[in-house]
């Protein structure tokens, strides 16, 4: 297990070197996209909920990664850095959309959840819809943490690197979020 993780680190380091080298950048970027596109897509989808918006955000995320790869210092893992960019892009997207529509972030999110019922790319049953409504009641950071822990099953240490929050803080947030969701589901 250690050897696998060690090999992955070596592979990541090599990929970063190639990404910063003009001659190898294109090929390396292709590898990067292939490796992370699904993970990043689903991470973003959990934040913005519908496919069309996720498609926009995931593409913008990779473009931002490509444009800023020279600034990546290696003080965190490459995927943590990319996840962070994806998170910020998704949240900025939502903020910008709510400003354009002249509604609050909360109102926009609730509307998007309500639209899931008619969304052709959402096949969840009533319980799944209710769960999404419950998640909509959480503050932004708790939403993020809950999604990353419950749906994406990331380790606390991984989430800590992405969100730059302590593991203790994350555990507390997740615990609170779970309790709120539980209460919401019981009442509704």
């Amino acid at each position, binding site marked *: 297990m250690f050897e696998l993780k060690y090999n992955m680190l070596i592979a990541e380091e090599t990929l970063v070197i190639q990404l910063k080298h003009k001659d190898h950048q294109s090929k390396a970027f292709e590898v990067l996209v292939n490796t992370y*596109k699904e993970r990043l*897509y689903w991470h973003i989808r959990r934040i913005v909920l519908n*496919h069309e918006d996720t498609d926009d955000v*995931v593409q913008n995320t990779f*473009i931002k990664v*490509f444009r800023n790869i020279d600034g990546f210092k290696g003080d965190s893992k490459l995927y943590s850095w990319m996840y962070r960019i994806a998170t910020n892009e998704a949240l900025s997207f939502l903020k910008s959309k709510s400003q354009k529509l002249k509604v609050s972030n909360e109102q926009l999110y609730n509307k998007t959840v309500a639209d899931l019922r008619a969304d052709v*790319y*959402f096949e969840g049953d009533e319980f*799944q819809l209710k769960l999404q409504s419950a998640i909509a009641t959480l503050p932004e950071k708790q939403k993020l943490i809950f999604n990353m822990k419950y749906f994406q099953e990331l380790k606390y240490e991984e989430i800590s690197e992405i969100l730059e929050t302590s593991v203790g803080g994350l555990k507390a947030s997740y615990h609170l979020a779970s309790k709120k969701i539980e209460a919401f589901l019981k009442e509704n």
Partner: protein
Amino acid sequence: MNKINKNNSFKVPDGYFDTLSGNIMDKIHKEKSTMSTSPGFKVPEGYFENLNTDIFQKLENEPVETKIISLKSYKKHFYAVASIAAVVLLFIAIQFNGSKAISYSDLANSDIEQYFEFNDMELSSYDLAEILPLNELDLNDILENRLDNDNIIDYLNSHVEDFEELNLNNDE
């Protein structure tokens, strides 16, 4: 006792084990995709296969920010000209103020003190000994916190056992 081959009655299709790992990996991959989505969320058919192309196309179409280096760098010359003009003006102003030579008496004492305070003179202790008049020095000139005589006496009371050792003589 002969070892019985447990599997000698059972057969497998030709090439089964060659394709087995590939099939397993495909299934794991599919499961992982649905796991990370969790039930409910779907993507259009073939979305991820086309995503690479979309991203690369977007990258090519994005306007690249190029640094524009103007051939006539007015800014560079502007600063040079401005500084020369400032020096010339200063020179003229000094001339107009008269030809009186500046001596040490023109410097305020506060200016001199400030100079010494903010410039690192790197004086050695020998330099200091030459410059500082010892008979005019007081302990409180060196210490940061002024010492009251009472504090000195209290200290001596508590720390000195034999006052004779101190050799304090008011006559001297």
